[in-house]
């Protein structure tokens, strides 16, 4: 099958019963789903489990996908839901603190310095490590918006947020990321 085949075509084939189409979907999105799962659950073993369960759940409900949103948005919504259930069962401490209980130390930021440091650090690796230290929600919103290039409306769909909440969460997540980076680099 050529790489130009769209998600919709692959989904149609899968629904029609072609087993290889399911495999194609897994291969195409395994890294995205796994990365997002890892951002939420914070360890690779659990991320494998969440990613696998997410694919299986997506396959079970594939015929319900009506194309009202992008397939990726629909898929990430499933990953979010599976990951949250996983955390509730296995690591509720990661979900126990809400934003108000995690105040930002904005005074530590030194915006210019942090930006400067961010620019010249061994960027990707350090940002990746910093993202891993964020809460599941913050890491999720950063990953979805910047790495997966989902619009703010799509982020809202995936994470069940209002637009205002999503924007606030994104802004806070960014600031927390900077705090982590500025602390790491000093």
């Amino acid at each position, binding site marked *: 099958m050529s790489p130009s085949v769209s998600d919709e075509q692959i989904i149609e084939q899968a629904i029609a019963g072609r087993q290889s189409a399911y495999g194609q979907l897994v291969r195409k999105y*395994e890294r995205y789903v*796994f990365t997002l799962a890892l951002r939420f659950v914070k360890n*690779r073993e659990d991320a494998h489990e969440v*990613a*696998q369960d997410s694919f299986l759940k997506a396959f079970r409900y594939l015929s319900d996908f009506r194309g009202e949103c992008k397939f990726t948005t629909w898929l990430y919504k499933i990953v979010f839901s599976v990951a949250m259930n996983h955390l509730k069962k296995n690591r509720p401490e990661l979900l126990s603190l809400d934003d108000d209980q995690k105040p930002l130390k904005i005074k530590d930021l030194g915006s*210019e310095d942090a930006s400067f440091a961010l620019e010249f650090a061994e*960027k990707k690796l350090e940002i990746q490590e910093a993202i891993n230290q964020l809460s599941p929600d913050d890491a999720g919103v950063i990953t979805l918006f910047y790495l997966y290039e989902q619009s703010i409306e799509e982020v809202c769909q995936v994470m069940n947020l209002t637009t205002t909440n999503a924007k606030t969460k*994104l802004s806070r997540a960014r600031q927390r990321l900077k705090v982590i980076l500025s602390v790491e680099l000093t």
Partner: protein
Amino acid sequence: MENLLWDYADGLLSENEAETVRLQLLENPTMQRQLEVILKEKNVLMDINLELPNRYFTDSVMAKWTMEQYQIHQNQTVNSGPQTDWILRAIGGLMAVFVLLPVLVAMITGGKGYTNLPKTVELTQKLTLPKVDYSAFFSHPFVYYAFIFGLVYLGLQMFDKYLQQRFVLSR
């Protein structure tokens, strides 16, 4: 200010707000430099490497999915009742009749022709096991055909399982 610039860079501002920021940027070189830094940071965020699951991940997902499909198919076959496998059920019924009928006949006729049991066994005598003539039982036409039907039934059941597995795997 920084948040506003991030929102501007991310395209999260309304048209009016974005226009205001654009005008401020034209007049404020510090703000312009700040925006440049933000855009670089944004590029880094958008360029982070994706994590790689283990090499067997796809195979593992597909194996679980195939297994799930197979189980669903099995359940559907079981729940679908006599419409789908009525032939097998009919053969099974016939086999049951052929197995039970000789037993019934033996019960009615008192076992004549099937066994050669002694009427009494004296305790003082050396205990010998009664001799049973199984050949009469097995050579009985009902039993003979029941065995044949049984074998055919089991063969068809196995063939049916094989076809089901092939069907699921071929999908």
